[in-house]
């Protein structure tokens, strides 16, 4: 009986040691998955911010940093999305809105889940020379 009890004790201790090891492995794996998810989100956020800063300083769209030219926006939004994707990659969109009259310009916009950022910008109206305030929204589809 005493021998059997000692044997059971050893089996039970071994069982708990295995549980601890499995728990450690699950914890490490879970922590690693958390890291990957965070890293993935960070990459998406960085891409959205990069596209935002690139668009806001690109002479193809702006007159000055963060001051869009309405004629350039109109010309650019007339281009097919595929033309933008070829140069700047896929799964992103931009929208510019003039707060004064509600005019909107959209490039590669779709109704899909996305991570997006909005910043205030200016819109230069070429015809009148006036400068309005608006919003630039850049999103990366998830």
């Amino acid at each position, binding site marked *: 009986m005493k021998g059997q009890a*000692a044997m059971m004790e050893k089996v039970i201790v071994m069982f708990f040691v295995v549980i601890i*090891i499995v728990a450690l492995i699950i914890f490490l794996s879970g922590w690693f998955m958390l890291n990957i998810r965070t890293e993935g989100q960070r*990459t998406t956020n960085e891409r959205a911010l990069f596209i935002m800063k690139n668009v806001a300083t690109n002479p*193809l769209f702006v007159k000055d940093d963060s001051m869009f030219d309405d004629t350039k926006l109109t010309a650019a939004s007339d*281009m097919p999305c595929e033309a933008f994707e070829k140069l700047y990659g896929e799964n992103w969109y931009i929208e510019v809105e003039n707060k004064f009259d509600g005019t909107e310009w959209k490039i590669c916009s779709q109704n899909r889940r996305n991570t997006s950022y909005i910043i205030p910008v200016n819109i230069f109206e070429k015809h009148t020379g006036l400068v309005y305030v608006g919003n630039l929204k850049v999103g990366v589809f998830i």
Partner: protein
Amino acid sequence: MLSVMQVFQIIFSLIAAVLIITFLISYAGDYQNIQGSASKARAINDLLSTANDVYLTGNPTTFDGFQKVDLDYYFDTGPDQDVINSLSAGNYPVYTPLLMSPGKQMILDRVDYDYGWWRFSLVEALPEMKVIFTLEDNRHETRQIVTDILSFMPSTLYHDPPVLFGLCDDNALLNGDFCGSGDTDCHRTYFLTYMNNNIDDTDTFSRCTAALGSKHRLVTLSGYCSPNYVDGLCINTNSKNVYLSGLEFEYRDTVDILALLIGWENTDILDHVQGKMLYDYINRKFIEHAQFASEIQSKRIDLLYADFPSPSTCRTLLSEMKNIMDSITSATDKQEIIKLLADSKSKHKSLVTNGCDYL
């Protein structure tokens, strides 16, 4: 004498210990592989992030994210996608024009072609290197080619890793301090000053036969380059062709040379010469970006017409600019596009001068 119980305990303990240790070692091995791949992935993502920052700001930056990681990646370019390909960490798409030569530590800098109405920018990422020039054909025009190449290379006076320049004549490399910089090796600025002040058409140089290290990159300017010229990069100053690794390339602008110089003779896992890969890649990117920009500008000009009466100076200039834009969109040859872009730059200046558009 051991009892049966004790024997059982020993055997059971041994079996349990072996099972647990085997399981742990196997998991540790997998975990180490996963962590190794994760480190490489992080390093490559950080490199691309740094390249994006340099693309936006134009500020040169040192990147040393590969100090503790194997350099098993290469630039894989093609019409469908341009990626950094790592054998153990996957593919990473590259969106900003990038000319890259892998290294444990790299200097990243931006190069711009500014046309006024549009700008083409690319990022160059270089490891430590020493570019050695041999001026077998020594004339003012060929020295201008050297000056143009240097203007596209980063100044590493205050940055690491050093990108240095030197001269070779026959079997001798001129010493590091020949350009008058004291203890400092020949950084770009000192080399340019030395060349402008000390070399003229009367100096002669023979083909370089000096022993070169792995960090050296020999650039020969000669009237006699051919596909059989095996020492580094050879620029034929008569035919305007360039030779690298037995391959022949057209020389239309400095970026052609830059791509070959940065990619160099290194081969990837598929035996592609990286110099050729970068040359084809950057020319494709340049044409794509130029045609895209021209198409947008052409559409914009259609909108600008309404602001000016017909006939008027602005209308005429806008019409001429639109013709240039439409020609660029339909062109197939880089040489032709370069010429049209030069025309567009002066036309844009005229538009600004006449108050038809802004700078």
